[in-house]
């Protein structure tokens, strides 16, 4: 069970670590804040409570930068 993560021009394949693994869990695991990103699942905007499925492409777009 893998998905593709796209964030800041990097694209990587990641294992889905647990059942009902959400985008919010992913954001936490990456050490980011839900405040600073918006999320797309297979090119569609979604809420962070969305569960990641096998084969998904998850894109995190950073919208808030310091300064």
């Amino acid at each position, binding site marked *: 069970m893998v998905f593709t993560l796209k964030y800041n021009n990097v694209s990587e394949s990641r294992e889905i670590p647990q059942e009902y693994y959400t985008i919010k869990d992913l954001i936490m695991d990456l050490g980011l*804040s839900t*405040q*600073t990103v*918006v999320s797309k699942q297979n090119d*569609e*905007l*979604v*809420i962070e*409570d969305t569960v990641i499925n096998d084969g998904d492409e998850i894109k995190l*777009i*950073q*919208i*808030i*930068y*310091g*300064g």
Partner: protein
Amino acid sequence: MDCTKCGNPNVIIKKEQSGQYLCKDCFIESIEKKVIKTVRKEKLLDKGDKVLVALSGGKDSVTTLEILNSFRELNIIDICAVTVDEGIDNYRQDGVDIAIRHAERLGIEHRVVSLKDTYGITLDEIMQKPNHRGSCSYCGVFRRTIINKAAREMGATKIATGHNLDDEVQAIMMNYLEGNTDNLTKLGAKTESEAEEFTVKIKPLREIPEHEIGLYVVAKELEVHFAGCPYAQQSFRGEVSDVINKLNEAHPTIKYSTLRGYDKIKNALKDDFKKDYSHGRCVKCGEPAANKLCKACSFIEELKGD
């Protein structure tokens, strides 16, 4: 979870403060309606205004332009824009280009004004000086002066900036925590200066959380410059922002209540703490100034110093 408004199953936001879920179209509409409501409630626009948008190319200024343009389409106002090029290598040009494309797309009068042309120095050059005061102090002062001047030259009756709910709440809390009652009297949706040389400033996005503005531009597929300034520093504002966002997790209405509370006491603050405005002029550039030189010119003199 379906959209609370229309039942569409593809929702893009859960509004923590109200428990509402919204789909893309309903979310976009809700933001635009809310900004229009702020404009009406705070009387930010008068028919016939020429509004100068301070357009950096970032999400806040592009959203401001996009939504104010609906008033222009109704022939209520005219719009022009100015972009300040501070001269920051590998950073600023992208925003400038994006600003130019938006102005062209909408067919509005637009000027790009550089620090280099105005003051003969770029921010990069300033940062090479041993006696500099930190990038953001210069940016703030020079940008404000350039925008005020452009507004007068372009015949603008209002200046619109992209300040959002987070910016405003940070400013309220920072000034409060620092005991800066003078600055505390100057916040609000519309800053009216007694000096006629200063154009009235308006903040149409003042009630929209920063995160929702980011979501709005992505949802609407508006081209904006998402990037961090290389000179962004650890600042008191950043620390205050972190605290407020932390509190906001368990108390999702806290930003709104801080804003509302401030609005309630603002007039009382003004009555008690407003300083008399000095009607002086800068001897060097003629801009309004409290001392012999305006802030921008005194910075330039100081930088020349060694």
